[in-house]
């Protein structure tokens, strides 16, 4: 039967986030983040110095917002200069950049950028692990990953006593 009546399923709200990290010629890493949702559009770029992972420069702007006043908040980003992308960064950014005296959108964007920088370091490693041409090679790569990775119990793949650990004798 041909459907003649369709429920109103127009989206109430949409959000698109894009984050990327790239290596610069000066040896640092640049993270760029863009957010577009129903109420707001914002962009941000931040340079992270290697190897100490400190945020050395950060710029951004709120291009579109429901309340016009939000567009004046970009200066808040400068509070992130000197922060180290590592343990404790989530709480530090949420308390310093976000919260009642800050902007939660910009705080989340910084954290998205930090995640892109950190994940940038793991892509090569994962790429090598997944490039094994044989089952034996893959099993060895899995064994190495489980043995050498300190993230025990950080997710289901690294859970203690899980099936791959038992099978591979890790």
């Amino acid at each position, binding site marked *: 039967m041909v459907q003649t009546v369709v429920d109103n399923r127009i989206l109430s709200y*949409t*959000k698109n986030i894009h984050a990327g990290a790239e290596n610069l010629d000066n040896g640092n890493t640049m993270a760029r983040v863009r957010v577009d949702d129903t109420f707001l559009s914002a962009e941000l770029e931040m340079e992270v110095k290697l190897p100490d992972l400190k945020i050395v420069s950060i710029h951004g702007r709120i291009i579109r917002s*429901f309340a016009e006043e939000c567009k004046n908040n970009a200066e808040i980003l400068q509070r992130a200069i000197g922060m180290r992308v590592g343990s404790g960064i989530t709480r530090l950014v949420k308390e310093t950049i976000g919260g009642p005296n800050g902007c939660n959108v910009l705080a989340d964007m910084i954290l998205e950028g930090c995640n892109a920088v950190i994940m940038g370091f793991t892509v090569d490693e994962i790429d090598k692990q997944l490039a094994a041409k044989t089952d034996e090679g893959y099993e060895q790569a899995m064994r190495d990953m489980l043995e050498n990775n300190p993230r025990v119990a950080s997710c289901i793949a690294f859970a203690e006593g899980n099936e791959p650990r038992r099978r591979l004798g890790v």
Partner: protein
Amino acid sequence: MMFEFTRSKTIGVEKREDGIFLVHGFLDDSVYTIELDLGVKTPEFTIVSARGCMKRYTTPECTKAPRILDDAVGLQTGGADFETKIKKLVGRGGCRHLADLFIECCNAVFPALIQTQWKEARSNGISKDDFIKGLVDKEPKIRDRCITYSREGELTERLGVSW
């Protein structure tokens, strides 16, 4: 220059007649592709359904991660410790990238609710400023949420709102 890493997240929220918001989330990055569908009942903001799928991943174990979503049904979104709770439950028990998308989807429900209210207000001829005033009056969680909606904020000063 080439991206060392890139991640895109797309969230869409639709409102059903029964007050349930359906949230569709999609994460696609250099390493993972993850899909998530959540149902959140308002006004309690209770998670009534959660289904996910790991489409691209790093280990065969990753595909089992969405099973943990059953344990998230019944939780209320929002609140000071909600993100920590989800990072522990869905992240450590399943996958931290799935938890990231889960939190993003949950956080989308409140703005979706506001959008539906704004749409109705606008069709009734209410101005944006009056809508914001009403919002600050009836939604305590908007107050002091950020510098714009703070007690001494530019916006609240301009609109003459106080609490």
